[in-house]
């Protein structure tokens, strides 16, 4: 007889209750409408004609339950302040993000083995985000980096908490855990190891105009943060002094 799945740790019940309300509110029913006079037609603007359109507003709020599958150990590890990777016993590749099955065709989907990884790595590449999706707007401006954890062969996406004008490829970083951890990659962040010199060939730094322009446009981001969330520039800069 099949064994039923059993909840062995419950950190979700209050959340499920809270989200019931959102599901009720966000149930695709029309909450309001506008009448909009706008151009209609396939051709150029001058060939289009004005029509009146009814535009309705419908919300959609849902709570998914999603299994992390066999890499659950990695995410539970984050909550418990441990960083895990996996290693293929055949080709010895170390994966972080972990794969429980090796993707090397020679290894024929071999089962990998879990291993603890050090809380150190280096920046493989990065981007400085001055705009982002809704969930991340309050964190702007931030550095989205792909960091290769020491001992791993692949790179993991992670935010580097630093002044965005100071990040470079090859930068050594320490991995830190956030105070509040929920079980996703945002539970960790990277901070540059102190005392490193920016290499003269860093693609962000080899032309000083790059840094100047980045500073100029970060001011726009600060203005947005202040207007939308009341977050001040000095609060943002405080985040980077960890």
């Amino acid at each position, binding site marked *: 007889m099949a064994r039923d799945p059993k909840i062995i740790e419950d950190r979700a019940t209050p959340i499920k209750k809270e989200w019931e309300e959102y599901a009720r509110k966000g149930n695709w029913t029309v909450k309001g409408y506008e009448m909009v006079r*706008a151009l209609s037609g396939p051709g150029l603007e001058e060939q289009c004609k004005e029509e009146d359109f009814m535009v309705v507003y419908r919300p959609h709020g849902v709570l998914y339950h999603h299994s992390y599958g066999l890499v659950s150990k990695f995410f539970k590890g984050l909550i418990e302040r441990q960083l895990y990777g996996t290693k293929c016993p055949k080709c010895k590749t170390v994966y972080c993000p972990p794969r429980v099955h090796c993707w090397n065709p020679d290894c024929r989907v071999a089962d990998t083995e879990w291993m603890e990884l050090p809380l150190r790595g280096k920046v*493989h590449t990065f*981007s400085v985000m001055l705009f982002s999706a*809704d969930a991340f707007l309050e964190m702007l401006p931030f550095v989205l980096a792909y960091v290769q954890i020491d001992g791993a062969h692949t790179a993991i996406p992670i935010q580097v908490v630093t002044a965005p004008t100071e990040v470079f490829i090859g930068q050594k970083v320490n991995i830190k855990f956030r105070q509040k951890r929920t079980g996703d990659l945002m539970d960790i962040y990277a901070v540059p190891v102190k005392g490193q010199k920016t290499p003269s060939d860093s693609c962000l730094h080899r032309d000083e105009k790059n840094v100047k322009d980045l500073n100029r446009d970060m001011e726009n981001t600060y203005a947005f943060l202040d207007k939308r969330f009341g977050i001040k520039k000095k609060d943002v800069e405080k985040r980077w002094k960890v």
Partner: protein
Amino acid sequence: MSDRRVAILGGGLYRPGRVRYDNAEEGVAMAYKNMLEDFPKLDPREIEFVQSSYFSDHLNQQLCMAWIVQDYIGQHRKGGYRVEAGGSTPLDNIINAYYLIKSGQYDLILVLGWEWMSEVDTATTNEFIASASDTDWDFTVGGFYNGYYAALETRHMQLYGETIEDLGRIAVKNRNNAIHNPFSQWRAEHGTGRVTLDDYYKDRIIAWPYRRWNCALISEGACCLLMGSEKMAKRLTSHPMWIEGVGLGSDSMRPGDRLVDWAYHGVHKADERLYPANVEKPKTPYPEMANFGFARESAKQAYAQAGISDPLKEIDLAELFAPYDGVELCLYEDLMFCPRGEGKTMIRQGVVERGGELPCQLSGGLTAFTHPVGATSLFQTLFLHWQLAGLIKKKLGDATLQVKNAKKAITTGHGGTGCQGGVIIYSKD
């Protein structure tokens, strides 16, 4: 392989814009109507199969929208389905129709594509699109394709030395092409004035190294193509555009996994050797997080079928699927217009400019013409059809963009961060 030839017979469009208020099925219907005007001899009942492409169900709170569209234009009863693969959606749509015709299954297929992307706010649109990235991993840490692509470009820039100015040159080129394309969103929003590098530098950085101008547009629009066998081409048009070769390829889902990419390991040895000596080599040096392996794999297949050995010389123009300007630069390399690392010289020397040896993105491309995801490659293919048929003046009311005696063209498509994609080679004869 079957020796049946397959052609794009023609197509129609519904002008894309940031926000349109005709809804998707109406937009597609108008594009279809626009197409029918070019085919007075075609009885719509003759169409044997209808293939649709749109990218996202989230954007419009509607699954299976293809069923709405197919019946709205009275093309139901016959077979049809949706093809979907992120940004590669419309290219795959064309390729799939090509297979169906080439196999002998059908002689005449209607290919529809659309996307309505402004029903949610811009940040949410970006979030929905980014849910095509791995939501357990990459999405969690930035949730925005601009960020992933910017990180890829940073890597290429560090390895091969292109500059912000090179990205600016591409952005300026594409806008100065788009001002001659009245269907382009750039022209609709900014008029017909030329832009310069100075203007580019004033533009806002979104995700360094990318400014807003370097990034794909958000669009609502529809496009359709009529595809057929030789028999249909003969009967229905005097200027078919033939498909001479197609190729498909893929890269890993998560870009960070490309540092040890066993599927690519040792496959492209020449490119692995072109890895700069002063940078620590990852286990797999090509494509790494710098180039696009899917494009190389696709191009190899497509060139072999089309008998192309020197793409730069043999191809007359390109409409690339480049949602970011660094992707365009990398594609010059991965499509073998130049060796790896030389993409920057293609733009610096004007090779890819209008009037250059291989002009790219004469339409304006995804950053200046339009990018309604499920229709983008259809728009680019329709534009190429007008080019090879010598119809640019007729269709755009301006002959500036017409490449004289254009005989061969290339287009590409891809989804994700190059996770899946393809190449098509078109020819006039």
